[in-house]
């Protein structure tokens, strides 16, 4: 069996387009998901009992089911319930964001519990309002302490985003599979696709360790 990687040079552009879509989708859902996750973690840590139960239910459902099921559910079922046509892009973004929100909620919860009671008491003593307490004390502390885990959550999201290809989004995985099918050279194309994912994800995972050391040093 002879392998020929050279023909892939003709497919650089579609592969990069696919990668661009993957990265855009990952970043958009990461931002929305992190905001959602932080809000959910605040509710789960400081909220009243009924709100805590709702937030816990949300996290359990999205962590307890495969992302593929969630994607299918958002794409096929949500339009039936809401009577609106949801495009595949919106469905993917919504499912990935909610999934990311559920994982980052757990990340933030860990760092919220590391904020000491004294620090919160100090806020009360200084007469800071509840909002200032959240935005100026809790948010920065929780964020810095969750940085390494958040980054690895983003890497997971980047990898998991390959699933949107099953809905027909033209992301890197979808483009790769398409080229593999049309060129009948799956080994070269799929290996290259895997390498592209690797090249993006590996340096990020290295950063996780680096940030971890830096953060542990200072906070």
């Amino acid at each position: 069996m002879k392998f020929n990687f050279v023909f892939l040079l003709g497919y650089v552009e579609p592969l990069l387009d696919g990668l661009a879509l993957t990265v855009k989708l990952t970043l958009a859902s990461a931002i929305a998901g992190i905001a959602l996750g932080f809000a959910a973690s605040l509710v789960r840590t400081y909220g009243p009992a009924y709100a805590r139960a709702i937030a816990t239910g949300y996290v359990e459902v999205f962590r307890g089911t495969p992302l593929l099921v969630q994607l299918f559910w958002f794409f096929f079922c949500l339009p039936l319930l809401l009577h609106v046509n949801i495009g595949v892009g919106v469905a993917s973004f919504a499912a990935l964001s909610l999934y990311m929100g559920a994982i980052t909620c757990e990340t933030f919860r860990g760092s919220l519990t590391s904020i000491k009671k004294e620090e919160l008491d100090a806020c009360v003593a200084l007469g800071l309002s509840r909002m200032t307490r959240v935005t100026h004390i809790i948010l920065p502390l929780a964020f810095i302490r969750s940085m390494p885990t958040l980054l690895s959550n983003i890497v997971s999201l980047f990898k998991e985003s390959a699933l949107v290809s099953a809905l027909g989004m033209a992301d890197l995985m979808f483009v790769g599979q398409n080229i593999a099918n049309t060129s009948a050279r799956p080994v070269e194309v799929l290996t290259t696709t895997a390498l592209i994912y690797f090249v993006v994800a590996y340096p990020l995972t290295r950063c996780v360790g680096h940030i971890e050391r830096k953060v542990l040093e200072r906070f």
Partner: protein
Amino acid sequence: MNYSLDFSWISSGLGLLWHGLAVTLVIALCANAIGVVAGFVIGMLTQSKSRLARLPVSAFIEFFRCTPALVQVVWFFYCVPIIFNVFLSPFAMGILAISLNLTAFNAEAYRAGIQSVPRDQHDAGVALGFSPFQRTTLIVLPHAFRMALPVLVTNGISAMQQTSLLSVVAIQELMYRGKEVASDTYRPLEVFTTVGVLYLVVSVVVAHALRVIERKRSFNYSAA
């Protein structure tokens, strides 16, 4: 217009979903059996003194941790038969793909446990005349396993959820059956919700079992 739920497909479709769930569970159990054992072996190898042993093992771990599981699954199904000229049944191939992914993640989980075995225990093993194999299985393994257990279970649950990716390569597990029933009955909402609930129940039950074990374990520690 309001959407009205219709569960009349249950009579014909639920059997298929059960069948799919059984396939999912068998694949997940096999993958976990392989992943828990092979993960420890790989985890030990990352601590090896020889660079020659460490390098391929780290490459294996990093590769499986830094590429999407979906790419791995598709790669296994298309490329393994061509490159290595092996033709496994799709079922075996599915187990292989999921278990190798799980092995890489479990190796990382074991690593912290392996590293935390105190040097003294190792020396004591030597002093008592244990062979390196005995030291590994009788001293390092129990310690590392206990340390890694929570992460092993979390990884195991993720692996169970990842078996849903095998639907893409037409293995008839739960997700595949769900898609099949949904398109046969035109009832995607009810069917996919049921599928989601089935996955959720398995995940929650396993996660709860872990919590029970943890509680028992800490009790044992305090008694000892």
